[in-house]
């Protein structure tokens, strides 16, 4: 039962354009969503997060949008740079319990930014 889904295994974008990575979730009890970037043979690196009580969070070139009614979030990267090429994981925190940091990950999307 995949509670966090990234339906696009890969995305290819031209340098300078916008990259939009999508993520859907099924569990309405998730209270926090995070995006991680991962290079091969390295651990995931935290990028940006959003609380379930917000619908937008922006940090430099990265913006995350949350649509709770649709159980959908997206990560926008503007402008995209070749160094952004990596695997991007969407993750959701919760629900509840004794370990709020427990994350459920999506399958990841491979982003390739062409010069």
């Amino acid at each position, binding site marked *: 039962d995949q509670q966090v889904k990234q339906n696009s295994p890969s995305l290819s974008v031209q340098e300078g354009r916008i990259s939009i990575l999508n993520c859907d979730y099924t569990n309405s009890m998730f209270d*926090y969503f*995070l995006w*991680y970037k991962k290079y091969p*043979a*390295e*651990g*995931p*690196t*935290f990028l940006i*997060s959003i*609380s379930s009580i917000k619908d937008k969070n922006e940090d430099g070139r990265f913006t995350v949008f949350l649509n709770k009614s649709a159980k959908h979030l997206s990560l926008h990267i503007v402008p995209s740079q070749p160094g952004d090429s990596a695997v991007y*994981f969407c993750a959701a*925190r919760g629900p509840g*319990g*004794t*370990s*709020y*940091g*427990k*994350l*459920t*990950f*999506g*399958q*990841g999307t491979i982003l390739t930014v062409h010069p």
Partner: protein
Amino acid sequence: AAGVIQSPRHLIKEKRETATLKCYPIPRHDTVYWYQQGPGQDPQFLISFYEKMQSDKGSIPDRFSAQQFSDYHSELNMSSLELGDSALYFCASSSGQTNTEAFFGQGTRLTVV
């Protein structure tokens, strides 16, 4: 800034052997999480500890055990290794259970032959 340190980075073991993976969290972080990422798969939560007590348990096999020590480092012990245990094992740490960001180590690649 200090990050999460995992050792060893690479480990090769034979079937039925035992392996111990270590994780040193970011200083002053009291919560540690273990994740397993198989080839082509997303990271799967195994187990977590807060203040040296197990706080949550995911899809961790009974052959695996873990603990967090007084200095907050954690060890994942894996016995009777199987070929299917070959994976990247990530440790993450955070400050407090409700902190929103978990910082990951570079992982230990375990290969079981």
